[in-house]
C-alpha cells in the first residue's frame, strides 16, 4: 500500500477525473437508535468487521492526497467508535474540514472537549421530532432529553448549532413546533430534510411518504417562520423528490465529487450504492484510494453519459441532472441504467405518481401511528432490500 506524505497534500489526481472533494466515512453501522427512515443498508447486520484505526487513518491520508477536503464522520453512530478522537485529530492535521454527523447519544462533556481539542470543526445533531413522545417513538429509544442536553453542550463548546430533522408523514405536521424547538436551542442552521426512500426508509415508504397537502402546509409554515426570524436562522427545506417532475442531480453524478467508505472498508460512489447489482465495489483493504477513485470499474461505471438509456441519452438536461439517482432507478424499476422515475419524461414515472396517490388516499391522523407496520432498524430485522413496487403492507 503506498503511503501518502503526512504533511501537506501531494497531487495525484488523474487529469480526466476531478478530486473526491467530499469524503464520508461511515465508521460503524452500530447505532443506539433504530430509526425507521435510516438510509443504512437494510442488510447491515451481514457486513464484515469494522476497519481498524490504522486503516481509517490510511484512508484519510490517501484521500487527502487526492484532494479530498470535506470530511463527514457518520455511521451508524460514530461516537460508538472509541478511536473517534484519534481519527478526528489525524483528519484535522491533514487539513480536512471535519464534520461529525451524530444522534448525540454518547456525546458527553468529556468527549466533546476531547473532540474539540482534536480539531473537530462542526457537529450536525439529528432530531427525530419536536416532542419527546414522537422522537422516542420514531427512533425506538428514549433519547429526547439527552439530545436537548447535547444541543446545549454543542453551543457551550462554541460550535455552530446545526440541527437536522428528517421529515415524513408522521412528523411533518409538527414542523412549526420543530422550528420553535430549534430556535429555543439557539440553532443557526436547520435542515428539514424530507425522507429519501433508500434503506430502511424504502422498507417503510408507504408509512412515511407524506401527502401533498401535508407538504404544502409544512412549506408554508416554514416560510412564515423564516420571515419571523429573519437572518438569525437559516432553514433548508428539502422537498421529497417524489413530488418533483425532474430528478435530483444525485451526487453531481456518481464518481464526480463524492466518496463514501462503509464500516468494512467498501468504497462507494454514494451511501446507498451498495445495493446496486453488478457493481463490484472495491475495498480499501485491497486497494488504495487513488486506484479505487480513478481506475476501478465501479467508480467509472456511471461517469460520463455512455451508460445512459433513453430518454436520458438524448435529453438536453442530461448534463444537469445526470439522469437522477441510480439507486432510485434500481429500487423502482429494477434497472440502475434507467431514467430515475421521478422524472416525468421517464416511461416509468407512474411508479412515483402512484405512490404519491396512495399517500393522498390514506391520509390519516398521526395519533393512530400505533396501527402502522413500521420496521425499526435493528439487527433482528436486518434483511436484503428487494427492488420493485412497494404497495401497502398494513
Amino acid at each position, binding site marked *: 500500500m503506498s503511503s501518502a506524505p503526512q504533511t501537506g*497534500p501531494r*497531487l495525484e489526481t488523474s487529469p480526466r477525473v476531478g478530486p473526491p472533494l467530499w469524503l464520508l466515512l461511515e465508521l460503524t453501522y452500530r447505532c443506539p437508535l433504530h430509526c425507521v427512515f435510516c438510509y443504512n443498508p437494510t442488510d447491515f447486520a451481514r457486513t464484515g468487521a469494522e476497519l481498524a484505526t490504522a486503516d481509517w487513518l490510511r484512508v484519510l491520508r490517501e484521500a487527502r492526497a487526492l*484532494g479530498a477536503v*470535506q470530511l463527514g464522520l457518520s455511521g451508524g453512530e460514530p461516537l460508538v467508535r472509541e478511536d473517534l478522537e484519534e481519527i478526528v485529530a489525524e483528519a484535522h492535521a491533514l487539513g480536512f*474540514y471535519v464534520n461529525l454527523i451524530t444522534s448525540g447519544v454518547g456525546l458527553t462533556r468529556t468527549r466533546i472537549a476531547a473532540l474539540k481539542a482534536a480539531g473537530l*470543526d462542526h457537529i450536525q445533531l439529528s432530531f427525530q421530532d419536536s416532542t419527546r413522545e414522537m422522537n422516542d417513538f420514531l427512533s425506538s429509544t428514549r433519547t429526547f432529553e439527552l439530545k436537548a442536553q447535547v444541543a446545549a453542550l454543542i453551543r457551550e463548546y462554541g460550535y*455552530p448549532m446545526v440541527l437536522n430533522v428528517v421529515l415524513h408523514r408522521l412528523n411533518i405536521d409538527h414542523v412549526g413546533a420543530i422550528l420553535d424547538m430549534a430556535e429555543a436551542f439557539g440553532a443557526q442552521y436547520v435542515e428539514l430534510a424530507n425522507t429519501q426512500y433508500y434503506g430502511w426508509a424504502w422498507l417503510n415508504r408507504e408509512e412515511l411518504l407524506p401527502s401533498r397537502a401535508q407538504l404544502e402546509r409544512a412549506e408554508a409554515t416554514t416560510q412564515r417562520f423564516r420571515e419571523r426570524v429573519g437572518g438569525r436562522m437559516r432553514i433548508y427545506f428539502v422537498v421529497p423528490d417524489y413530488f418533483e417532475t425532474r430528478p435530483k442531480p444525485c451526487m453531481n453524478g456518481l464518481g464526480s465529487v463524492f466518496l463514501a467508505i462503509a464500516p468494512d472498508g467498501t468504497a462507494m460512489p454514494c451511501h446507498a450504492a451498495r445495493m446496486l447489482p453488478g457493481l463490484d465495489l472495491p475495498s480499501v483493504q485491497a486497494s488504495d484510494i487513488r486506484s479505487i477513485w480513478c481506475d476501478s470499474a465501479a467508480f467509472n461505471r456511471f461517469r460520463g453519459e455512455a451508460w445512459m438509456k433513453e430518454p436520458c441519452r438524448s435529453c438536453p438536461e442530461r448534463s444537469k441532472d445526470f439522469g437522477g439517482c441510480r439507486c432510485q432507478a434500481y429500487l423502482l424499476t429494477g434497472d440502475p441504467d434507467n431514467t430515475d422515475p421521478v422524472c416525468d419524461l421517464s416511461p416509468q414515472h407512474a411508479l412515483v405518481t402512484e405512490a404519491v396517490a396512495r399517500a393522498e388516499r390514506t391520509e390519516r391522523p398521526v395519533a393512530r401511528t400505533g396501527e402502522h407496520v413500521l420496521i425499526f432498524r435493528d439487527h433482528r430485522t436486518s434483511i436484503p432490500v428487494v427492488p420493485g413496487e412497494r404497495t401497502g403492507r398494513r
Partner: protein
Amino acid sequence: MSELPDTSRPAIAHGLRLQWEPAQEAHVLLYPEGMVKLNGSAGAIMSRCDGARTIADIVADLERSYGLTGLAADVRAFVALALQKRWLELRE
C-alpha cells in the same frame, strides 16, 4: 458601501476556514458541510482578512502586491458581499 469604514477589520467568520487547495489550484472557504471555491481575486482578498488588518491595510497590501492602484472600491464591494454571505465578520 458607506456603512463600511476603512478602519474595520474583517476576519474569516467563526467556524469557517480558508485554505489553499493544491488539487483545485484555488483558495477554498470551508464551512459546515459545504465549501466555496474562490476565484483569484476573492482568494487574494479573503486571505488577507485576518482580523488584524483594516480594509485600508488590505487595499494597500493588494495594490502593492499586484502593482495596481484604485482597488479600494472593488475590495469594499467584495467585503460587503462576503459579510452578507457571512463568510466574513468584522472585528472592531
